[in-house]
């Protein structure tokens, strides 16, 4: 019988090779842990003293795989996977927030300091999710950057390391992506060829 750690490693390898069913099977193994990370992520925004989500995911990776060092391919793919799951969790969180009746004075929590116009508890998150699905149909690599940088909370440097590109190239892509997303979420112009 394969241990949970062994199964995670195996499924990560299959997902990495393009087996999308491996992602579905990984989810129940990792989702509860990442929900805790997401809760801490939201707390971090409200309290900067709480650990960063990336550090928590690093700890989670070590715990799940019981390795002394998280390096190399497996680590990179785990972060990519975790970022995708964090997107799902934070979107679920936004959906739940939308169904609850809230009183006034709810504190605004930005998804990221670099994307402060998206409030984590708002319908903007759901708009963002839809826009990312559309962006993914055109260029899935750009969605991966958004998931790592804004949903998992990686720095530009960490994101560049994980996608094995230069920081300058990642920053350049993110500038375009933010403009594209902003136009999708906050439309202010007429229809054009970029899909507005």
């Amino acid at each position: 019988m394969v241990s949970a750690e062994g199964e995670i490693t195996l499924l990560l390898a299959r997902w990495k090779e393009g087996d999308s069913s491996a992602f579905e099977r990984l989810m129940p193994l990792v989702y509860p842990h990442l929900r805790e990370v997401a809760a801490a992520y939201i707390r971090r925004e409200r309290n900067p003293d709480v650990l960063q989500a990336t550090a928590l995911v690093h700890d989670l990776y070590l715990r799940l795989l019981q390795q002394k060092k998280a390096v190399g391919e497996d680590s990179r793919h785990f972060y990519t996977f975790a970022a995708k799951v964090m997107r799902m969790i934070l979107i679920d969180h936004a959906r739940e927030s939308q169904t609850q009746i809230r009183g006034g004075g709810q504190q605004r929590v930005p998804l990221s300091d670099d994307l402060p116009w998206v409030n984590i508890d708002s319908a903007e998150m759901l708009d963002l999710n839809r826009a990312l699905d559309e962006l993914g149909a055109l260029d899935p690599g750009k969605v991966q950057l958004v998931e790592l940088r804004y949903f998992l909370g990686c720095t530009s440097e960490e994101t560049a390391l994980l996608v094995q590109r230069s920081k300058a190239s990642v920053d350049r892509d993110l500038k375009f992506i933010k403009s594209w997303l902003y136009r999708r979420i906050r439309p202010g112009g007429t229809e054009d060829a970029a899909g507005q």
Partner: protein
Amino acid sequence: MEPTTETFLLIESIFHEAVAAPEAAREALIEARCEGNRSVAAAVYSLLAACNREEREALCWGLIAAQAP
């Protein structure tokens, strides 16, 4: 209208060139690179406008966050 991946990549490429160019040279650059394709040019202009609006709004939220207790 949803763009094809090819059109999307062309728009992105022109956007990056326009951002890197001096503001006074942008319009000529976009017109030259779009070669008469008005919908691609409109997409690039629209993205540049969104880029400015996004940066302004991000700045405002940054100022608000800095003033929060």
